C-alpha cells in the first residue's frame, strides 16, 4: 500500500496538471514544443491566435 504522502503528492500533481490544461498552460507548452521555439511575447501572440481560432468556435455550456 502506498504511503499517504505519496498518494497526496500524486493527487496534488494531478490537480496541478488539470488546472494547467483548463487554463491552456499545457497547450502553450505543447505549442512551444511543436514549434521548437522558446517562450516570448511574439510566440505567445501566435499561440493566442491559434487557440482563438479553435476555441472561439466551441460552444460554452449553460
Amino acid at each position, binding site marked *: 500500500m502506498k504511503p499517504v504522502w505519496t498518494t497526496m503528492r500524486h493527487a496534488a500533481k494531478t490537480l496541478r496538471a488539470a488546472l494547467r490544461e483548463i487554463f491552456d498552460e499545457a497547450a502553450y507548452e505543447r505549442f512551444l514544443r511543436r514549434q521548437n521555439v522558446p517562450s516570448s511575447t511574439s510566440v505567445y501572440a501566435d499561440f493566442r491566435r491559434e487557440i482563438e481560432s*479553435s476555441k472561439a468556435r466551441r460552444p460554452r455550456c449553460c
Partner: protein
Amino acid sequence: MALLAAIAFAAIALHRGEPINAMWLVMAAFCTYALGYRFYSKFVAAKLLALDAQRATPAERLENGRDFVPTNKWVVFGHHFAAIAGPGPLVGPVLAAQFGYLPGTIWILIGAIFGGCVQDFVILLFSVRRDGKSLTEMAREEIGRLGGFVAYVAIISIIVILLAVCALVVVNALKASPWGVFTIAMTVPIAVLMGVYLRRLRPGKVLESSLLGFVLVLMAIWAGQWVSHSASVAPWFTWSATTLAVVIILYGFAASALPIWLLLAPRDYLSTFVKLGTIGLLALGILALHPTLRMPALTRFVDGTGPIFAGKVFPFAFITIACGAISGFHSLISSGTTPKMIRREPETRMVGYGAMIAESMVAIMATIAACVLQPGTYFAINSPAGIVGAAPEAAAAKISSWGFAVNAADMHALAQSVGEQTLYNRTGGAPAFAVGMAHIFSSTLGGQTLMAIWYHFAIMFEALFILTVLDAGTRVGRFMIQDALSHVWKPIGRTSWYPSILATSALIVAAWGCFLWQGVKDPLGGINSLWPLFGIANQLLATVALCVATTIVVKMRKARFAPVTLIPLAWLVSVTFTASWQKIWDPNPRIGFLAHARQLAASPNLSGASRLIFNDRLDALVTGLLMLLVAMILIESVFLWARVLSGRQQAVIKESPFVMTRLATEEQA
C-alpha cells in the same frame, strides 16, 4: 450503501412540517451517485458500449499536439467538468425550489443517474469512435440529412434563448445595485491588466495572472461597499434594468465583432478560476455548516400556481432543472473537445458519466443554498412585481397570505445586511442563490459582518461567468450563422471579412437581444416566459442527442440494451412535448403564450400591449417550431429503427476502423 441511500431518501421524503438538515440530501446524493457509478455506469460500459481497452482512440491515432492530445483521465475529467459547468445547475434548482426541495432533488438524482450521465457518456464514446465528430455530424451520418439539419436548428435556437436568459439573469441581479455594477465594471480594467501581464510580462502564465486577477476582484468587491455608501458615487453605478439591458446588448456585439481578446480571454480565465474556486468553497461551506433547510418538502405551488413561473410540477420541474439532471448542451461538449483528449476507451466512463455526477452535485448544492432561506424570504426575492406588487408591505402581505410568513421590516433588514436597497422582485434566481450562499458562507466564515461581502462575491461570481457564457456564445452563434449563410452566398462565410462579421454579429445579437428586451419589459419578470422556453430548447436538444444514441445502439445490433437510452428519451419526449403544448395552448394566461396574448388583446388600453402580444406570439411560434423539428427527427429515427430491426435495411454504422492501441503495450512495458 443502498441501505444508507434508502434511509436518507426516506428522511427527505417523509419529513413534513418541520425543518430538515441538509446533510440528509448530501447523504442521499452521495449514496445514489456511488451506486449509480459503481453499478449502472459499469453495466452500460460493459453490456451496451462494450468499451475496448485495446482500441486506439483518435487522440492516439491522430495525435497532433493541438486538438488531438492523449491526456491523463483526471486531467480530461477536470477539463470536461470545467466546460460543462455553467450557470444552469445553479439557477435552475433555485427556481424549481418553488415546488419545495423534494421534486427538484429527486429529479436531479434520478435524472442524472439514468439520463444526463448516460447521455454524456454514450455521446462521448460514440464521438470517440468517430474521430471526435460533432453531434450534428453524427446525426447527419447516422439518422440522415434531416437529423443533421434539426440538430443544427436546435443548437442555434438554444444558443439564442440561452444567451437571452443569461443576460436577463444578470440584469435582474445588477439592477439598482451600485455595488454589483461597480464590481462587474471593475472586472474590465482587471481583465485588461491580466491581458497585459499575460502578453507582455509573463507570457503563458495563466494561473499566475488569474490568481492576480482574483485578488484584484476581491479588492473591487471590498471597494464596492464604499461605492454603495457614497452619496456622490453610488448614482453613477445605479442602473435601471433597461439601461443594463442596452449595455449588455452593446457588450455582446462588441465581444463578437471586435478583436478584443485582451479583455475577453483573461476574463474567461478569471471566470473559470472563480467558478471552480467558488463551487469548491460552497461544498466545504455546506459540509462545515450542515445547514437546516427551511423550505418544506412540497409547497402548495405543485398545483401550478407558483409565483416564480406558472405550471404544475409535471412537466415544469423537469424542464426548469436541466443542467443538473440532463442537459442537451452537454452533448455538444461531449462531442467537441473532450473526445479528442481521451487516451483509452474505458476512460470515457469516468469522464462522461463521472463529470456529469459532479455537475449534478453542484445542482444539489444550489438546491440547498435556495432552501436554507426562510420560504417567505425566498418568495419575496423571486416573485415578480406583477404577482406580489412592488410595494414592500403589499408584497409581504401577499406572500404571507400564501402561508409563508415574511414582513417588510425583516426584508429591509436583510437587504441592508447584504448592502442592497431592496431584495424584492429580484427574479432570475441569482440573487436568491447569492443570499443563500452568503448565509452559508457567513455562518462558517466571518459572521454577519461579512454577509454583504459574501453576497456580492456570489453576485460577482454569477455575473462574471454568465457574461463569459454570453460573449463566447455570441461568437459561436456568429460563426454558426456565417457557416449556414455561406451556403447561400460564399463570401459571408469568410470569418475575417469585416462586413460579414458585423452583419452576422448584429444578427445574432438582435436575435437574443429581442428576447432579452422582451424579458426586461415583461411585468411578470421575464423568467416566467423565458426560462421554460430555454428549458424546452435544452431538453429538445437532449432528445436529439438521445435519438442519435439510440439509433447507433440499434445499428450496433444491441437493441435489447436500447432501453438504456430509450427510456430517458421517452421521458424527455413526454416532458418536453407536454411543456411545449401547455406553453402554447394552455388557457391559463400565466402558462399559455396565446392565452396571454388574448388576455392582453382584451385590454387594449394597456400601454405597450401590442408589443407584449407580439412577444407572446413569437414565443409560441419558436416553441412550436422546435417541437415540430424534434418530432420530425423522432419520427425519422423510429422508422429507421423499425427498418433495421425488421431486416429491411442494412445496419451500417460510420465508426472509424479498429486500430490496436500502442498504449497498452507501452503501459505494460
